[in-house]
Every structure is written in structure tokens, then in C-alpha cells.
């Protein structure tokens, strides 16, 4: 445990709240630029087909229409697109902002109409007629790999988007050969999506004289947005300014600009007029990126005491037609993280990702999380086959403090994780043993009660291009502090937590700090807010910059006070000789001297009270948690009621516990939504059926259980001791809930391995 500081460790109320609560946030749809036009897309209503022609004449004739652009007009002069994180040579779907020779999913953008108002833009879009000759859709991932399958991307020659071959080992073969028990099961996860309350959107403005592009975007990463604009348009990055204001959630969807955003940017340059595009909800559900549709077959070899001796994994991912980023596969991350919180001596992990004529996959909170979804359900299934309680089976296999440091079968090194502690804390908080007694008694009365656990290890992703972030801390002439960061906070509360870190280490008052982010013209380079990186990488940069500025301020004060720096202390935005409060020089006084009164300063006293630092993090920092849920299943309607929900987590030193709990809660409800309510459905012909909020069901306050928290605080080895935790809530909640539901159904001999576990699906299992 780390003792809380003046600011770090406190549930400080958020700086961003007053403007957001009073309607004074500035989201992208609030941006109005003089002369601005509005874009709308014409989209394919056919899942797969040859585009014989696009008749735009009637649309062009509509008053107010500035342009109707098809691929033929928009594409010439555009350069290849690739994401920094994936690299230039990574496997990816072909890049084309608009469909040209063919359409590859329902929603595929065919044309872009650019009009005086969004109302008329939608009128014009209706008037565009696409002549499409249907081709067979590609929907089933297994069939898509067959010889006779129609090809989603004919230029690639195969529907196989990516492949991770199994890497077996003699140890693994031996483990299976000598196992007391081998259990194999295939788990299916269905298609659901990020669904931020603010859809995607941007305003793009091209200055033809200066050849400069300005984009106001709803993004999780302004610099990546800029990089991609630079690549596609062939522009130097400094000529592009990407500005993010407030952003209404992302969850991965806004990490990378997708085809529509790129099309709008290309259109604004071509037309020389500012263009706004605000995705509507129908488009967002139809084509804004989907996630999670995949299956995983897990074979576990165990000895007679239930110790895991080896695991084989095969994953099959449906990445749709145009996944973002790269080929949409999460297998590489999944293969590294799969062993999670358990001692698994030998592992093989094979995966195939498959293109289909559906909306492409995008990143979604814990994109690789199928490893936890399948692993944790497998633990419960194995426990049932062994006749052992799932808690006991986890106790026998979980990594304990004595095991550390621990290197997993996939090569991950854990130094400061605490899965065993969170397992015990969650079990205690939910009253595991008492619930088992209650459950037994209630089963006698015919009630179906169940309890489920799920453990996981969550990586903060700071590998490769995600490994650094920057912060500038500047003492302004009035003694106040500007904190300028490369972050892209869009709900994560960084405006508050980064200021807490700076106030703590600089020694200023929190209220003196103003936080600035989200303008590539002015802020340090940042790899974007996502991947549970911020508490590790961004906070590292904020801390480092604050300490460096503090040192400068102390050096300046030492020169002024004619004291040794080591005799000085900094507190409440002032520097003075320790034990002599009367000597304290307020930051405002020192700033005044540095900026304006420098002639009076001794030689060598620093006057540059502005520091920019970049923090370089290790590739992974691991947090961990255990989720525990209790449920009741109504055997008549199939409805699942969540009775209690507990999360015990260890994200190291919490910068702001209130914010940590808020992140957990949001993630948990997304997982609950996924298992019980949300389902992006395609019919057998490839038509999406759930493209409004009447059919795509997000959980509401009435469906949300009260979430209870337990904290274990094991400091990481990083300065500051933090670990990232933004995604975990959404990773472990699906299997915790699935395990609880299956535990409830156990007396009926039913074990569900497919999501969603909707009332109708549960009833279908009950009534074969």
C-alpha cells in the first residue's frame, strides 16, 4: 500500500465536469465554420455485388448540392493508408474510401454527397441510384475458407485475413499424453459494438493557398488522425492540424480514422470548401465498426488434482470486410495474454481471421478479450467435469505472490500482479460460501441461482509506437501552471488525473493548473488515449515534466534566496527555506522574476520555466482483477437477474479512486450489455437487422446492477506505481456472467457456450 499524497490517491472531483454539466462542452458537431458544407453517404443496401454504375444526375440537380463524389471522382491522387501501430507492411484489407468496382457489405459507402445542409444532403443521397449486380454473400467464417467461397476481396485471392500457426512443443504433447483429464470446448462470442453515445464525425477545412488542412475530429488520437491524413493526401504532417474538443466516448471506435472520415478529408481538399460529416446512429450501427464475433476452441490438460498441465487454443475471428486497424485480428495479443492469471506450463495458440461481407471489425475495449472469455468459461467447465467447485479449481492454479516474478508460457513476465489476492477478496466480498448454502436451499424450492467468477490480467499497451507520451508543464507569468499533453481524454478524466499528478510532483495547488490537449499544432506527440495506457505512459510523462520543472523552479528560488537547493521545500505553489515559512517565494513572484525581472537575477539562474518531457514505458504493465456475479434465472421467461456484482482489482497506485471505479463500472456494464442485451444481427442473406436503438439494445439504469468494489494496491515498478485498467471491466464481465448463468442452470444439466444469453436463447436451451 502506498500512502495517498496531497492529490494522488484522492477522489478529486473532476475539472471537466462544470462545462459538461451546463451544456458548454464543445463536441465536433458544435463546430461551425463559415462556408461549411454537410456530407452524407450513399451506402450499399446489398451485402455483396458488382457495382455496374452509379447514377448521380438527379442528386446533382437538387438545389443546394455542391458535389456528388463517387470513387471515380474521389480516389485519384490518394496514396496508400496504413496505421502507425500496425506498420506499413501489415496484412490489411484493401484501402478504398468509397466502393469502386463492387460493394462488400451492407453499408459500404458508394458515394459522398456534399450539400448546404444535412437535411438536403439526405434528400440528395436518396436520389443517387446504384446499379448493383448481386454476388453470393460471405457470412460463415468456416465456409468462407472453403474452395468454392465467393471472395470478399478478390484482389487478395483468399478470405483468410490472417493466420497465427500453432506452435506446439514436446512439453505440450507430453502434457496431453499424460493428462488425467482433457476437456475440450468451443466458445462462441457474438457480434456487438462500441456504440459511443456520440457517433463519429469531423469538420475538415482545406486552405488551398497555404496548402494546409485543418480537421476538427471526434477522435481518440489526433496525431494518428493527422498521420493518416498525411499519408493518404501526401501532405507533410506539420501542414495538417487536427483538433479534438470534447469527445463523446470512443471505446476503440475512434482510435483510427476509417473510410468515411478519410473520404471527407479527401473531399474537402478536392472541393476547397469546409465539409462537416456527423455520422448518424443508423450509420454508426450499420458501418461504424463491429467487434467480438469469434469462436475459440480450448483444450485443457489437467492432472488428477486439477492442475493445468497444458492448453491448446484455436481461434476463428470474423473481421468483416474492412476491419480497422490492419486486418482486424486480435490473435497476436490474445496469444500473449491467454495464460492470464494461471500457471499454465505449456501452451499453443493458433488463430485464423476471416473476411466476410459484413461491417468490418474495429477495436473495442479489450479487443483481444476472447482469451479471457473462453479461458474463464473453460475453467468452470473443467471444474464441473472434475466435480470441483470453480473457486477451488482457480485456487489450485492461480499465480500467487510466492510465484513472482513469473514468466508465462507465452513469455510475459509478471512482477507485481496479485490474482490470488483479488480472487480471495472477491470471494469474500460476495460471500461465496454463504451464497453456496443459500443456492442449495433455494434450489430445493425451484429457484435457479448461480455464482460466477472470472479472473484476468490486463496489459497496459505501451509497446512499439504506443510506448511514449509527452507532456509540457509551463509556469505562466502569473504563477499559474499550463499542462499541455499529447493525450486524447474523452471520458477518462485525464484533465483531472494528469493535473493531480502534476500538482503532487510540482508542489502547486491543483486549482492553479489548466490542462490542454488535443491540438496537433501545439501539444506534444501522443499515441492516443486507449489501450489502458494513460495511467502508465501519460501519467509518467506528466510526472517527469512536473519534477523537471520543479527542479528549475527550485534552482531559481535558490539563486534568489541565496540558499542551497537542498534546503528548499516546495508546497502550495511556493518555494521557501525548510522551517522558515517567511522565506517562501510564491510561484507568481518567481515567474515574474523569470519573465520580467530577469535583469536582477544572478548569473546562471534559470529563466526557462517550461519543460517538455517524454516518458518511455516498458512494453507492458500488468494490472489484474477478479469479477464475481450472482444471478437468478427465471425458467419461464429465461430472464437473467443480476443479484450482486463484485469487482476486486489491483491497478497499483490509484491516482483517483473515484475515476478508477468509474472506469470499472463502465466496462462492466458494456460486458453485461454484450452477454444479455446487445447483438448485432445479420440475417442469412447478409442484411443487418439491428441498426437502430429500437433493435440494438443498450442496457439502461434499470438493468444495471449495483457494482461493489474491492481494491488491492500493489505498486508497479514504474515511478508512481500505477498500472492501466481502462479495459478490464469489459474483459472479465462477460465470462463472469456466463459462468454465473451456467451455474444457475447446472441442475438442469445445461451448459451454454454461446452468447448472447438472451431470454429467448436461454429458453431455447431449456426446451430442446
Amino acid at each position, binding site marked *: 500500500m502506498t500512502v495517498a499524497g496531497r492529490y494522488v490517491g484522492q477522489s478529486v472531483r473532476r475539472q471537466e465536469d462544470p462545462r459538461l454539466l451546463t451544456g458548454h462542452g464543445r463536441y465536433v458537431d458544435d463546430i461551425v465554420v463559415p462556408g461549411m458544407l454537410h456530407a452524407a453517404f450513399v451506402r450499399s443496401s446489398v451485402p455483396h455485388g458488382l457495382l455496374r454504375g452509379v447514377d448521380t444526375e438527379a442528386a446533382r440537380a437538387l438545389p443546394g448540392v455542391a458535389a456528388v463524389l463517387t470513387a471515380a471522382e474521389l480516389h485519384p491522387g490518394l496514396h496508400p493508408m496504413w496505421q502507425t501501430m500496425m506498420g506499413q507492411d501489415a496484412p490489411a484489407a484493401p484501402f478504398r474510401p468509397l466502393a469502386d468496382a463492387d460493394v462488400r457489405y451492407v453499408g459500404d459507402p458508394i458515394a459522398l454527397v456534399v450539400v448546404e445542409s444535412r437535411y438536403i444532403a439526405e434528400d440528395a443521397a436518396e436520389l443517387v441510384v446504384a446499379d448493383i449486380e448481386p454476388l453470393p454473400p460471405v457470412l460463415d467464417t468456416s465456409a468462407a475458407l472453403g474452395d468454392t467461397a465467393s471472395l470478399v476481396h478478390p484482389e487478395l485471392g483468399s478470405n483468410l485475413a490472417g493466420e497465427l500457426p500453432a506452435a506446439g512443443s514436446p512439453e505440450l504433447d507430453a502434457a496431453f499424453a499424460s493428462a488425467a483429464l482433457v476437456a475440450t470446448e468451443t466458445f462462441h462470442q457474438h457480434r456487438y459494438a462500441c456504440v459511443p453515445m456520440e457517433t463519429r464525425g469531423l469538420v475538415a477545412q482545406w486552405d488551398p493557398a497555404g496548402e494546409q488542412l485543418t480537421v476538427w475530429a471526434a477522435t481518440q488520437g489526433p496525431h494518428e488522425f493527422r498521420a493518416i491524413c498525411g499519408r493518404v493526401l501526401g501532405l507533410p504532417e506539420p501542414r495538417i492540424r487536427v483538433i479534438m474538443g470534447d469527445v463523446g466516448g470512443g471505446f476503440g471506435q475512434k482510435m483510427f480514422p476509417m473510410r468515411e472520415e478519410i473520404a471527407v478529408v479527401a473531399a474537402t481538399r478536392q472541393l476547397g470548401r469546409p465539409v462537416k460529416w456527423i455520422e448518424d446512429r443508423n450509420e454508426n450501427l450499420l458501418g461504424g465498426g463491429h467487434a467480438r464475433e469469434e469462436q475459440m476452441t480450448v483444450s485443457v490438460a489437467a492432472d488428477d488434482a486439477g492442475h493445468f498441465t497444458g492448453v491448446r487454443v484455436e481461434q476463428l475471428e470474423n473481421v468483416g470486410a474492412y476491419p480497422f486497424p490492419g486486418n482486424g485480428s486480435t490473435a497476436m495479443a490474445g496469444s500473449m495474454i491467454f495464460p492470464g492469471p494461471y500457471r499454465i506450463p505449456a501452451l499453443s495458440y493458433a488463430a485464423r481471421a476471416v473476411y466476410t461481407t459484413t461491417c468490418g471489425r474495429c477495436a473495442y475495449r479489450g479487443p483481444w478479450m476472447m482469451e479471457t472469455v473462453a479461458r474463464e468459461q473453460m475453467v468452470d467447465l473443467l471444474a464441473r467435469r472434475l466435480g470441483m467447485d470453480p473457486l477451488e479449481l482457480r485456487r489450485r492454479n492461480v499465480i500467487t505472490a510466492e510465484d513472482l516474478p513469473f514468466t508465462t508460457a507465452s513469455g510475459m513476465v509478471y512482477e507485481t500482479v496479485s490474482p490470488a489476492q483479488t480472487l480471495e477478496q472477491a470471494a469474500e466480498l460476495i460471500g461465496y460460501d454463504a451464497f453456496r448454502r443459500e443456492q442449495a436451499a433455494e434450489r430445493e424450492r425451484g429457484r435457479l441461482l448461480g455464482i460466477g467468477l472470472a479472473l484476468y490480467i490486463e496489459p497496459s499497451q505501451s509497446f512499439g509506437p504506443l510506448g511514449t507520451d509527452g507532456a509540457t508543464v509551463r509556469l505562466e507569468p502569473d504563477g499559474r501552471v499550463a499542462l499541455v499533453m499529447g493525450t486524447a481524454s474523452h471520458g477518462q478524466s485525464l484533465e483531472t488525473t494528469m493535473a493531480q499528478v502534476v500538482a503532487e510532483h510540482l508542489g502547486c495547488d491543483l486549482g492553479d493548473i489548466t490542462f490542454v490537449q488535443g491540438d496537433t499544432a501545439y501539444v506534444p506527440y501522443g499515441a492516443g488515449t486507449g489501450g489502458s495506457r494513460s495511467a502508465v505512459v501519460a501519467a509518467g510523462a506528466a510526472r517527469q515534466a512536473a519534477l523537471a520543472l520543479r527542479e528549475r523552479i527550485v534552482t531559481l528560488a535558490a539563486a534568489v534566496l541565496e540558499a542551497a537547493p537542498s534546503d528548499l521545500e516546495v508546497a502550495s505553489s511556493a518555494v521557501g527555506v525548510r522551517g522558515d515559512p517567511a522565506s517562501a517565494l510564491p510561484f507568481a513572484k518567481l515567474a515574474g522574476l523569470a519573465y520580467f525581472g530577469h535583469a536582477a537575477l544572478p548569473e546562471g539562474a534559470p529563466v526557462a520555466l517550461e519543460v517538455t518531457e517524454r516518458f518511455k514505458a516498458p512494453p507492458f504493465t500488468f494490472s489484474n482483477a477478479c469479477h464475481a456475479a450472482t444471478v437468478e434465472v427465471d425458467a419461464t421467461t429465461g430472464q437473467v437477474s443480476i443479484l450482486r456484482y463484485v469487482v476486486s482489482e489491483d491497478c497499483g497506485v490509484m491516482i483517483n479512486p473515484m475515476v478508477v471505479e468509474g472506469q470499472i463500472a463502465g466496462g462492466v456494464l458494456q460486458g453485461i450489455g454484450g452477454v444479455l442485451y446487445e*447483438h448485432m444481427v445479420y440475417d442469412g442473406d447478409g442484411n443487418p437487422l439491428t441498426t437502430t436503438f429500437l433493435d440494438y*439494445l443498450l442496457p439502461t439504469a434499470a438493468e444495471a446492477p449495483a457494482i461493489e468494489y474491492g481494491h488491492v494496491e500493489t505498486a508497479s515498478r514504474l515511478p508512481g506505481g500505477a498500472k492501466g485498467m481502462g479495459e478490464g471491466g469489459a474483459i472479465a464481465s462477460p465470462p463472469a456472467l456466463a459462468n454465473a448463468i451456467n451455474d444457475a442452470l447446472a441442475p438442469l444439466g445445461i451448459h451454454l457456450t454461446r452468447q448472447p444469453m438472451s*431470454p429467448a436463447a436461454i429458453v431455447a436451451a431449456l426446451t430442446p
Partner: protein
Amino acid sequence: MKAAPFCYHRPGTVAEAVETLAAFGDGAKVLAGGQSLVPLMALRLARAEHLVDLGRIAALRYVRGAADSVAVGAMTVQAAAGRDPVIAASVPLLARAIPFIGHFQVRNRGTVGGSCAHADPSAEIPAVAVTLDAELEASGRGRPRLIPAAKFFTSTFTTSLEPDEVLTALHFPVWPGRSGFAVREFARRRGDFAVAGAVCAVTLGQGERIERVAIGLLGLGAVPLRAAAAERAATGTAAGDLDVTEIGHLAVADTDPPDDVHATPGYRRRVGVAMAARALTAALEEAAHG
């Protein structure tokens, strides 16, 4: 997601509304509270060249109680009907159904008449109207006419209103005596249209026998249904002898529920059995014990 253009008409009287509808024929649509029509227009699944807004016809907003019936003006917003003391006292089934409609923000705009004219088979007010044998009053160019609820709803989103007719009021009969009323429905989330639901009114007579019973079903067909066979089986039975699950099975036996992403027909029937049984149980309880 913006509606296609239309001409807007805001008549001040029913006669003026009827004239406007007659003038534009199939090109005209009536706008009541807009809570169902406007989303469809935004999605461009519905469009109208002429939209006739009844919102300013003050004469269509009222609740009037008489000895044996209660009249509710068609443009009475659902929230107002839901807190109206006359409705609460004389047509409790309606008062209890209203909280199931969407969310309170929707009930602040949605109207009693609009819900019926929209004729969603999963909607609550149409089910109550059919169950209580309400009469719906329509005004066209001819004389106003009263349409029995059973004949008003003809199919999904379809009614027996003529194109130039405006629904002006609903007349709900008052059930006297030792009566009980209940609404039970199952929806995926709070406020969603029901996967299946039942509304029930029952009157007990001598010897705790069921003197009169009406069971309505929503979400189980193209229109709100009456469970006639179930009602016949229950009528005359002593409340204590009633097998409510059996009545529930009878209620859904001849239904042909819709199939969609949320539920199969078989699932809807299964839930319908339970909802009918639970509604009947609750209504009987109230009739017996007040």
C-alpha cells in the same frame, strides 16, 4: 437521420383537420404526439407530403367521467391520462397500463389517441381498449361514428379509420362491482415494447365465482387480441378452483405471434402464457381483497 420535406398544417378544429385530410388524400398524415411517427419519418421509413398536426386542437384534450363510461379525448397526453383521478378511479386498467409505455419523456408527448391510431400490436393502450370493449370515436366528412375496439384494429399499424377521418375520443366502459385489474408484460428492457404481455379485468360474483373476465394480449399477433376461449373457460369458475396456467395456455393457443430478432413465435407464446396467468392472478387477488 432527417425527415423528408413536408408541408405542415396546424388546424385549430377537428373540422378543419378533416377538411385538410380530405383535400390531400393519401399524401396526408396525421401528427398526434409524434412519438412513433417522427422516428419513422427520421428514418425515412414513413413520409408525408402533408403533415396535419392535431396538437393545437384543444377540444381533443379532456377526460370526462359518466356513470358507466369514461371518455378520453384523443389528444390527451399519456402522462396526463396516467395521473388523471377519474381514470384512476373508473378505468384502473388504463391507469395501470400507461406506466408501461416507453419512458416518462415519451408519455409527456405521446397521446392516448395517437397510440391507437398507430396500432402497434405490442402497444398497451390498444390492448386495454380491446380488453375493455372500448369504443373509438372518429370524425370524418360525414357524421361522427363509434367503432368498437375489436373492429378498429385491423392489422399491424393498420386501423379501420378512413383516410379523411380523425380519431377524436375513446370511450371506456366502467366495470362495476368487485372487480380487479392487472397488467403484466415482459420486455427486453424497461420501457421496450413487450415481447408478450397480458391485460386483465375480472369481476367476482357470489361464491367467489368469476362473473365476468376479459383477457387481452399484446405482442402476440397482428393486432391486440382477446383471449376468448380462456375467458369462456374461466367465466363461472370459482376463483379458488381456477388453474391460471391452464387459462394462460388457452389464451395463447390460437395466436400467431410475430418473429423478429428479439423473440420467436414459440418464445412469445411461452411468455404469453406466463403473463396471462400472472395478470389473471393479480386481477383476481384485487377483486377478492380490494
